[in-house]
């Protein structure tokens, strides 16, 4: 190289490639209020739709009087199930193989269910008209408890399934039963339990909550009657899948459907599925020939669109007297609400719950899950997690603590002696997964040291003594968690959504002057894809990240992909991006060789250029190669510099982490102060450390919310008790704990860049850490299990039941 060439490090830094804490390119518009969300879309002639929703959780609909609503000036139509039936659209398939009413077909099954869709010229007129629709209900008995739903004489919820003893996932054993899913070796596990030194048993409930993204769900559907093209803008985490579903439902060819996800204000799984609002907006647009906007309000979102969790996990864990785990048994009763609208890969009706052996070397295990219908909203989505991984992690991390109590052991030590060792990877779990890589002991020891674990336990003992001596009314809890996730769904051989293999894609165009455009099959909802994917490409191609535009979310331009959820974007689309980048580089190498008049193999890659081996002053930069691709006739090479890659991952990735939460609990008021929260994440190769830190802060805050107060609860009548943000806990900056982040780096051996995904880890690992801290504070008074959320009154109740109040 000549004297003017900056050195390697300077050139690599200038690229802002992998490892750089590059500032998020999205933030300029988001922080200035210049994002473009669905509700920002305004079109000429656009009209509005909204729902009349059920007041009751279970009722027969005897009649719907729309006369007064239709008389409101500006009201165009009030759609009911009967209007959709001729199109076959009054019911729609769910992602879980069930079907769901689009508009109430004779009865309603949950409070907030869609009964009629009112369409009008203004949003205000539509709201007025909704209030004037008179629904004649005949109330039916309500079931909100999944165990009662499975009782012999329980009311029949899904009359449409009468006589159907087979469901999409096997036999239905009761009229309110959806499926039974079993993994592992039941007899062997039960034999181990029967002969074990120690067995700890508990019912662990992970309560119903809701992803509650800041932006609610919505869409604008526009049917152009001249060219027959349907365009739909919406809050879609999987736009291509929406296009395929829309085509299958409507009969419109996919080539005439364009789905666009503009900026999305958070998804967290809430925006994966297809909702009645989308179907009704499309129908209304086809009928009227005008664009139709439907946007949920907060109550609609909390009451009717997909909830998360609601798993009753009955666990038994067996161990030797020394604490070596010998077996794990779990039976889960899964409350899916009125329709099975979970968003899981088709073959996994309980998602990846079978990761519930966690970070531990457990020789034998069994998991059975029964899905049950109740009079609650449908859903069961992966709220900032990969398909029921949060439930699995919470289950095993509670069971470990409960076992530690039974063994009278330190819970950190119990974990350590049971971790899968580094030399056991790739590790075959008892429930069928192949963990790709991990180094749990290193992470765990680093975490315990960082928080001064021994010191904390000593302080806790002093506090306890003071409490017993009447010197303080505050107890200290130390919440431990070592989680293992399974993300990056997934290999096409066993992962699909509605038959679509869960690969993902990237398409790159290098422009003549050396900048680039890359399009992916995923869609950012705040994760910062435009920032990080450009960094992967910068490292792979030597083009500065600042000169790479990332586009996602428009099905007319982006390559087919399965979207963003389950921490799959980096493991799957990120791999496609790296591989497409490598295709670019391979072609550029041939161009450079031609320009330098050497053989391809005489060149080596050096950050942003090809250098003739041993002759450093002879090189061609990627920028020069790009130009040559467009202005030179190179024998044997097509002009242009583009590449496409579709990536089918060979395996999932298995991020892990060690979290430790310390809290002080006022036993008289139930107030818990989070004193510190340490989060060590190992997500393999780190693309942008700053974004990772931001993801950890965000996910841990959602975990804090879920563990400490957030829930969707129902009364006996099936009324939703948390339908506004007054009662649904979203922490403000004030309540949000301070986080200390840390990391180890164990690259995934099968991923092109070794990255594993991180966006969901803090939610998966955070919930057990917070919850375990609450339990730990009361451990010495005999508490083994108390269900979340740990809000003030429930913590107070623990203290009260343990006799800690006078």
């Amino acid at each position, binding site marked *: 190289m000549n004297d003017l060439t900056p050195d390697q490090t300077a050139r690599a830094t200038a690229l802002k490639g992998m490892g750089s804490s590059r500032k998020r390119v999205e933030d300029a518009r988001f922080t200035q209020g210049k994002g473009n969300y669905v509700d920002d879309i305004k079109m000429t002639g656009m009209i509005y739709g909204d729902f009349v929703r059920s007041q009751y959780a279970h009722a027969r609909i005897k009649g719907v009087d729309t006369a007064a609503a239709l008389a409101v000036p500006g009201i165009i139509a009030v759609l009911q199930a009967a209007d959709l039936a001729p199109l076959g659209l009054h019911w729609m398939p769910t992602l879980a193989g069930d079907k769901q009413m689009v508009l109430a077909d004779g009865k309603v099954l949950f409070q907030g269910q869609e009964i009629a869709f009112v369409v009008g010229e203004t949003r205000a007129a539509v709201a007025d008209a909704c209030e004037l629709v008179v629904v004649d209900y005949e109330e039916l008995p309500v079931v909100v408890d999944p165990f009662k739903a499975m009782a012999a004489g329980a009311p029949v919820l899904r009359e449409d399934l009468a006589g159907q003893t087979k469901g999409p996932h096997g036999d239905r054993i009761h009229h309110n039963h959806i499926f039974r899913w079993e993994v592992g070796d039941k007899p062997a596990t039960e034999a181990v339990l029967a002969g074990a030194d120690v067995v700890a048993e508990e019912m662990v409930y992970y309560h119903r909550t809701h992803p509650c993204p800041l932006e609610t769900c919505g869409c604008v559907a526009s049917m152009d009657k001249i060219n027959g093209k349907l365009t739909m803008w919406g809050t879609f985490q999987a736009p291509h899948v929406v296009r395929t579903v829309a085509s299958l439902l409507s009969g419109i060819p996919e080539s005439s459907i364009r789905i666009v996800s503009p900026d999305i204000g958070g998804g967290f799984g809430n925006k994966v599925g297809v909702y009645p609002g989308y179907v009704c907006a499309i129908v209304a647009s086809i009928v009227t020939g005008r664009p139709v906007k439907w946007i949920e309000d907060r109550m609609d979102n909390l009451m009717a669109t997909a909830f998360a969790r609601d798993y009753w996990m009955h666990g038994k864990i067996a161990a030797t007297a020394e604490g070596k785990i010998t077996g794990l048994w779990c039976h889960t009763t899964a409350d899916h609400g009125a329709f099975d609208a979970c968003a899981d890969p088709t073959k996994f009706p309980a998602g990846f719950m079978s990761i519930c052996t966690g970070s531990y070397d457990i020789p034998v295990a069994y998991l059975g899950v029964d899905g049950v219908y109740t009079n609650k909203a449908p859903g069961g989505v992966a709220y900032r997690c990969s398909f029921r991984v949060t439930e699995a992690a919470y289950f095993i991390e509670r069971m470990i603590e409960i076992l530690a109590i039974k063994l009278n052991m330190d819970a950190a030590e119990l974990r350590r002696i049971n971790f899968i060792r580094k030399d056991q990877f790739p590790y075959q779990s008892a429930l069928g997964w192949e963990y790709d890589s991990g180094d749990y002991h290193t992470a765990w020891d680093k975490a315990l040291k960082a928080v001064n674990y021994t010191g904390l336990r000593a302080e806790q003992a002093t506090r306890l003594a003071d409490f017993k001596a009447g010197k303080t009314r505050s107890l200290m809890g130390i919440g431990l968690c070592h989680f293992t996730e399974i993300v990056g769904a997934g290999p096409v051989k066993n992962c699909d959504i509605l038959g679509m293999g869960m690969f993902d894609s990237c398409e790159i165009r290098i422009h003549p002057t050396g900048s680039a455009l890359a399009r992916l099959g995923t869609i950012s909802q705040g994760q910062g894809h435009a920032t990080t994917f450009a960094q992967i490409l910068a490292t792979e191609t030597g083009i500065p990240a600042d000169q790479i535009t990332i586009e996602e979310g428009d099905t007319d331009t982006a390559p087919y992909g399965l979207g963003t959820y389950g921490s799959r974007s980096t493991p799957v689309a990120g791999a496609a991006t790296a591989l497409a980048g490598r295709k670019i580089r391979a072609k550029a190498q041939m161009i450079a060789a031609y320009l330098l008049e050497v053989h391809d193999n005489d060149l080596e890659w050096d950050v942003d250029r090809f250098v003739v081996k041993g002759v450093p002053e002879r090189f061609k930069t990627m920028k020069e190669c790009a130009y040559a691709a467009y202005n030179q006739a190179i024998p044997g090479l097509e002009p242009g510099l583009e590449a496409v890659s579709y990536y089918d991952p060979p395996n999932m990735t298995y991020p892990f982490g060690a979290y430790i939460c310390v809290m002080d609990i006022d036993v008289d*008021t*139930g107030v818990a102060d989070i004193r510190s929260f340490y989060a060590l994440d190992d997500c393999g190769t780190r693309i942008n450390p700053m974004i990772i830190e931001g993801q950890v802060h965000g996910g841990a805050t959602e975990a804090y919310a879920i563990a400490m107060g957030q829930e969707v609860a129902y009364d006996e009548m099936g009324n939703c008790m948390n339908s506004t943000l007054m009662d649904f806990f979203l922490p403000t900056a*004030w309540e949000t704990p301070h986080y200390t982040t840390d990391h180890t780096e164990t690259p995934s051996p099968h991923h092109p860049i070794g990255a594993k995904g991180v966006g969901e880890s803090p939610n998966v690992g955070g919930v057990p850490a917070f919850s375990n801290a609450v339990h730990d504070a009361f451990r010495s008074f005999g508490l083994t299990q108390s269900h979340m959320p740990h809000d*003030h*009154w429930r913590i107070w109740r623990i203290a*009260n039941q343990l006799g800690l109040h006078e």
Partner: protein
Amino acid sequence: MIPAAFEYHRPKAVADAISLLTQHGDDARAMAGGHSLIPMMKLRMAHIGHLVDLQDIADLKGVTIGASIRIGALTTQAELINNTALTTAAPILKEAALQIADPQIRNVGTVGGNVANGDPGNDMPGLMQCLDATYTLTGPRGSRDVRARDFYQSAYFTSRKDDELLVAITFAKPVGGYAYEKQKRKIGDYATAAAAVQIAASGGRVTAASIAMTNLSDTPVYSAAAGAALVGTACDAAAIKSAVTAMLLDINPASDNRGPVEFKRHLAGVILGRAIARAFSRA
């Protein structure tokens, strides 16, 4: 959450506002900061044909501090917090106002709206009962004064007539120590339990005490007996306990998402105990 259509009025004088309220009767409603009223309209729990916005009525604004303190109804919660003379004269106002909602809401929400609203969750009504404040109401038949301790009848029902405006709140400059203690689930939440306490002391003994509780009944609860239990004592544990016992006879909390009745009763006692201890330490 879109309100039904309404007519919007913006009078400049108290008399004009009152004639609008008289003219439209039931169908009209005064609006101050709108931060209780507008949510109710959006939820369509309040249907209001004529909204009478008080913002332009200068006579409803301003704070006067003398032997007694007079606060115009339209004074915002933020203005209470930022008025240093007021904080010196009656520091409990700032301590309480800082525990209401969040800065954005306090910039708009008014003291008058807070006390006139009649929501048992509002913090100012209990505070005003503790201070033994007087509300001045003006209507078509002239003005009258009602004590805060007599004003609240049940949730959202007060002794204010539909055609009356709350003009100002007046109370004697408080003496001694004070505390406003509130437990809530998060910023922006109403109280699970809150206590307003003023204590005057001399020679280590309580000479006067005033206690009111928030969100523990369908109205704020002034507990004369709780205050009386402290008078003459050194505010020791036993005295606090008898004040708490007296208070518990006066409240009647309901179970809701914040917790069951037993929890609220227990918490009310803890919160009051802490408020008394802090007020006495400042007396």
